[in-house]
């Protein structure tokens, strides 16, 4: 139980209760995040209804290969994250470290691919402003949403990488007990980042190709 005592913090009496609270608090935060992305997708949908053709034409210009590969990468990272968190709960040190490290690796891969995609988009003139590739004005609104959505999601991925790296580092040198509720909280957050992408993928990449 010495391990458990390390993970216990004020104002909690028991680790079980503390773990419940961490998970409950994370869920509340995820609810908040859901409204953030929900509002963004709602705004996107309103514009899509207003400018159906322009959005279809613009959606055709996104790079579906990058998008699809990235979807697979991110889904895999969710799997490894789940493995890592479950292993931590069972206090299995090695699988925890492997799971978390793989998650970081996948997440970085996602960002690198996304970076290449953004570079290509930029070169093709898909950033709204002078010299924009498409004629119809509302296509620029589509790409405004594209950059905001992928950018905001990218920020969430980056934050996730920072948090998971920090926890992995602490787990590796023994500063954080494996029983700490932090791993489960991080996993919940990471799944949200993944789910958001699962919504963005069809909106941005498949919408123009239906």
């Amino acid at each position, binding site marked *: 139980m010495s391990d458990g005592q390390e993970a216990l913090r004020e104002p909690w009496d028991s680790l079980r209760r503390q773990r419940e609270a961490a998970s409950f608090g994370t869920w509340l935060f995820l609810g908040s995040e859901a409204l953030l992305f929900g509002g963004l997708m709602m705004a996107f949908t309103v514009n899509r209804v207003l*400018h159906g*053709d*322009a959005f279809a034409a613009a959606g055709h210009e996104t790079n579906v290969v990058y998008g699809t590969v990235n979807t697979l990468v991110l889904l895999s990272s969710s799997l490894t994250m789940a493995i890592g968190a479950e292993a931590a709960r069972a206090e299995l040190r090695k699988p925890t470290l492997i799971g978390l490290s793989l998650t970081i690796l996948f997440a970085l891969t996602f960002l690198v691919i996304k970076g290449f995609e953004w570079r290509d988009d930029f070169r093709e003139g898909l950033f709204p402003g002078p010299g924009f590739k498409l*004629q119809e*004005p*509302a296509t620029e609104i589509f790409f405004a949403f594209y950059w905001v959505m992928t950018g905001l999601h990218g920020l969430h991925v980056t934050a996730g990488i920072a948090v998971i790296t920090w926890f992995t580092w602490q787990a590796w040198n023994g500063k954080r007990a494996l029983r700490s509720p932090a791993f489960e909280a991080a996993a919940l957050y990471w799944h949200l980042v993944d789910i958001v992408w699962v919504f963005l993928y069809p909106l941005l990449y498949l919408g123009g190709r239906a």
Partner: protein
Amino acid sequence: MMDIQLWPVAASDVATRVDAIVLVLLLITGAIMTLVLVLLLTFAIRYRRGSGARRGELPELVKKEVEIGWTAATLFLALFIFAWAAATTLGDARPVGDALEIHVAAKQWMWKTQHPNGAREIDALHLPRGTPTRLLMTSQDVIHSFFVPAFRIKQDVLPGRLTELRFTPTQTGEFPLYCTEYCGTLHARMGGTVTVMEPEDYGRWLSAQPQGDDIGHEGAALFVSLGCSGCHAGRGPVRAPGLAGIWGRDVQLADGRVRRVDESYLRDSILQPRRDIVAGYEPQMPSFSGIVGEEELLRLVAYIRSLPGGQP
């Protein structure tokens, strides 16, 4: 000493209807306010600490029934006011035939108005008394709002969209016009005067104005210079729907929907031609968004409307 005014002048049909609701609502809310204050004061004095008033358990009746009672009462009262206000709203929104149409364009920080015969005014608007009036408004930059307190009317004026106001002035005189949507540095100075005249006086005033081309004629010139006539006048190589007499009719769209041809439909068709394709035609028209400005749009619409057979 200036005389203190407590109630604004009511100079339109809308004002009469609004004032009626305001009066009744004032009575109702005044009664509720008085009730609450009287209860608060009575209880506060009667049940001050150590007073001889009877204490003891609350009467059974006061516990549940009173609570349910006032919940229900408030709810019914709220629904009653809502129903009345909503009915008035719907009544005001009913279109009236043969309204005098004035085009209003707002920009930082002035109001530009134009009468059907083309006469223009800045920060001013002359109207004949007793004539149903319809303002068609749009903005060239930020959001403004057209507010004439004496008429009890207000409507935001948006860029990229038409909004309208309907009312009938019922009193002659000069009434202030304000912009009530914050629009930047000189927002507070973006006002003007609405002058309501007897119809004869209005006619005289109007004929004394330097006559611009009327809006429809200006639209006709644009229709040619922008190249619309190349296809829509039925002479060019590209097949496009003719526009004569389409105003006010319903058209069948390619995707099966039906749309009434009005200002907003024509506007959409000029700015986003691919959105509502008329059945039987190819989506070939380029968008004129960014090419025609707001005032030009108003003229084009006026022209199309004036084409023969235009009135249903």
